């Protein structure tokens, strides 16, 4: 990924989500307007969680692993808990699985709406950012009614879930879904017909199916190129075999397709949640789990809003795990951006990055653009963002 000529742009971008200012380093190698290389360096959010897991017991780890990421906290906890339950040889009761599924889908809605707002902000569309985040408050309220917290819901327990869904909550969830479905029609219209949006996303960052497979893309980024990868479909867990999803793919493979796939996933979430609420089985919420988990090694894969989340847990018969390995989806998708960036205009970079929905705290990323000459210009993310907006005006 090294280029032979060109100016070096060091774009020190900070934060986790491009909209937030924060630590992170993007370096793009540019030749005039065209990007000729990109690379990645993480490190600002590295907290040493995998090591810390080894000195805490399983319950403490449940709470800590939830806080790997504030946006997808429930899937991290679910992946961990599913793995530990397999090791302990217990199976959470069907009602607990349904509630886990319900929370996962609500989280997917909140994450996609959050991302849509951030993407809009990157494209200079601040009004859409305000709309989507205002609508997102509906989901936050529902999650708060379910679990008592807007972020980090801590719904999981080893052996089941803590909170139950009664009729009143089910009704408010249904109402919330109806409201959001109406609003999603509006978002779909904007993303596919608004000139500003379409100008910046149609045809940009096109990735063919073979390319996506070779690069190891996961999640909506891969599905937008026609790759049929979705853990909920390929390897159903926690109730997804009783409430199957609709696999949503697109063939265009460009940025617009990634937007469209995520919005279509929103529709599927609404349908799935209504389905679960109707057919939720009665029963217990938990089964008893021992403190000490028998020796073994287990792999747990779940579908986070951004793609496949992989957990590998090794236990040694004590209360603490021996090894916990977390591989988050944005890390795989990063390879697609650094590959696709080459040949695109610098002004396309913000949207391209947003297209994979990067979650830095899940991964902590940095992008670097390689370069050979010694000229270097320092830009902030905001500069890059504004450059992109101006360019397309």
């Amino acid at each position, binding site marked *: 990924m090294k280029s032979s000529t060109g100016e070096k742009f060091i774009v020190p971008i900070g934060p986790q989500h491009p*909209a937030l*200012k924060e630590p992170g380093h993007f370096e793009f190698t540019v030749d005039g307007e065209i990007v000729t290389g990109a690379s990645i360096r993480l490190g600002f*959010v590295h907290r040493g969680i995998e090591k810390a897991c080894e000195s805490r017991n399983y319950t403490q780890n449940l709470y800590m692993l939830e806080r790997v990421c504030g946006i997808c906290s429930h899937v991290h906890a679910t992946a961990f808990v599913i793995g530990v339950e397999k090791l302990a040889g217990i199976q959470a009761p069907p009602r607990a699985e349904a509630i886990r599924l319900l929370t996962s889908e609500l989280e997917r809605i909140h994450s996609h709406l959050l991302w849509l707002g951030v993407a809009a902000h990157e494209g200079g569309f601040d009004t859409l950012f305000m709309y989507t985040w205002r609508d997102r408050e509906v989901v936050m309220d529902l999650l708060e009614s379910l679990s008592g917290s807007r972020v980090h819901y801590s719904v999981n327990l080893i052996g089941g879930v803590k909170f139950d869904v009664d009729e009143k909550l089910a009704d408010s969830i249904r109402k919330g879904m109806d409201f959001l479905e109406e609003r999603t029609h509006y978002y779909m219209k904007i993303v596919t017909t608004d000139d500003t949006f379409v100008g910046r996303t149609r045809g940009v960052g096109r990735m063919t199916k073979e390319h996506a497979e070779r690069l190891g893309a996961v999640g909506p980024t891969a599905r937008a190129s026609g790759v049929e990868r979705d853990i909920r479909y390929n390897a159903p867990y926690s109730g997804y075999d009783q409430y199957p999803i609709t696999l949503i793919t697109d063939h265009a493979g460009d940025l617009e397709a990634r937007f469209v796939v995520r919005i279509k996933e929103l529709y599927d979430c609404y349908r799935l949640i209504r389905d679960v609420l109707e057919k939720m089985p009665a029963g217990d919420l938990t089964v008893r789990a021992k403190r000490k988990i028998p020796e073994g090694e287990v792999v747990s894969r779940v579908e986070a809003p951004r793609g496949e989340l992989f957990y590998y847990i090794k236990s040694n018969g004590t209360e603490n795990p021996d090894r916990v390995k977390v591989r988050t989806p944005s890390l795989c998708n990063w390879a697609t951006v650094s590959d696709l960036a080459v040949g695109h205009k610098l002004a396309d970079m913000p949207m391209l990055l947003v297209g994979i929905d990067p979650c830095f705290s899940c991964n902590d990323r940095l992008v670097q653009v390689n370069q050979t000459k010694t000229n270097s210009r320092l830009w902030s993310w905001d500069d890059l963002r504004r450059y992109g907006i101006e360019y397309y005006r």
Partner: protein
Amino acid sequence: MNNNPMQEIIDKVMNWARINSPWAIHFNSGSCNGCDIEILATLTPRYDVERFGIKLQGSPRHADVLIATGPVTLQAKERLVRIYEQMPSPKFVIAVGSCALSGGVFDGCYNVVGDLSKVIPVNVFIPGCPPRPEAIIYGVVQLLESLKTGKAPELVEIDLPEKVFEMAEEE
């Protein structure tokens, strides 16, 4: 104090401007994003903190207030200090979230310093994991009130209940 009455008037105007329209810069020193999302949520229509005159913007050189989250990872520590130094005086720091207070769940992890006040002086701590947007706004308003009266923000004491919880029986 200043004997020059003109200077006093200028000071009053500047203080008024600072209180009524503080410019804030947000910095994440390694957090999971939960606090940052709640901070960003305060800008959105439901909470709309901009009606208090707070503006979140990008450059430290124009900022009055630094809103920091995260348990200060080793990599972020230097940048945090650099941003603090770039801010013009008088400057104030708000530490948001349990991680910025003490490291939160990450206390003891190898790449984490923890308490933000070990790195830069902090004026207001807002506890929570993450704190609700209302709590964040409350903390910011506390800071503004203290600027107005010239006193340090008031410590809110909460009495713990007699029995916090019963330990479950060992199986």
